[in-house]
């Protein structure tokens, strides 16, 4: 059985890879390459899996909220993803890379009895990225 909880954070970013020159970056990333960056209201869905047990809950909502708040929201919300988030330093902050970084931040010493099953990030209403946790 799975339980999914939705969170929100707002952050700015700029997509630009040092592997390419300025012109190639502009062509590849379009407006997302604008030098001063731009922002999104990200929706983050965190899914855990397990059995409800005696409490009837796969996971304590309060404990899950604390983990996500401390490891993600407190560090990502109202930040510049390129500049302010250490694990994204040197990484192009596409939503794909964001999903990988957030999964990694959650998985390190994962404290809940329920297993982390995946993360899903909605960058805008039209762009959604989903990652199933394999471990």
């Amino acid at each position, binding site marked *: *059985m*799975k*339980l*999914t*909880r*939705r*969170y929100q954070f707002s952050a700015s970013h700029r997509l630009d890879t040092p592997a390419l020159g300025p012109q190639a970056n502009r062509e590849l990333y379009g407006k997302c390459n604008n030098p001063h960056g731009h922002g999104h209201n990200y929706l983050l869905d965190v899914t855990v899996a397990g059995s*409800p047990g*005696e*409490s*009837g*809950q*796969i996971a*304590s*909502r*309060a404990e899950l909220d604390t983990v996500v708040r401390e490891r993600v929201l407190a560090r990502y919300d109202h930040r510049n993803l390129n500049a302010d988030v250490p694990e994204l330093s040197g990484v192009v902050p596409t939503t794909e890379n964001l999903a990988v970084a957030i999964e990694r931040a959650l998985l390190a010493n994962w404290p809940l009895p329920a297993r982390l099953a995946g993360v899903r990030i909605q960058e805008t209403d039209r762009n959604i990225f989903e990652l199933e946790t394999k471990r």
Partner: protein
Amino acid sequence: MLLTRKAEFSASHVCAHPGWSEERNRTVYGANANPNGHGHNYLLEVTLEGDPDPVTGMIFDLRELKDILNEEVVEPMDHRHLNREVPPFDKIVPTTENVAIEIWRRLAPRLSRGGVKLANVRLYETSDLYVDYGGES
């Protein structure tokens, strides 16, 4: 092929384990343990898996599916207090997980026929919290 049908019901509940102290219930369930209860607009998504019938082109008759959802879930649970009016929640804590499992238990026998089976019950308690149950133990 998958077919998903939605239904909604609004109900009140209290999440508190009868064998636990008030303090422990408060720790485990937070505000959900408030003794006089509170309510949600639940959104249910029921997913069936099967092949379209070669004659009708349908996996399952949608009108019948709607009637079954109404009979098994909406009529018994809508505008009810789950703990007081909807067994087994007089004995089982009506967490989102347990409500989803109970909905599965009610629907699975009526929706499984021929090559069609109930594949998933997704129950939203709020827009920020949902559970998925596929009949696993």
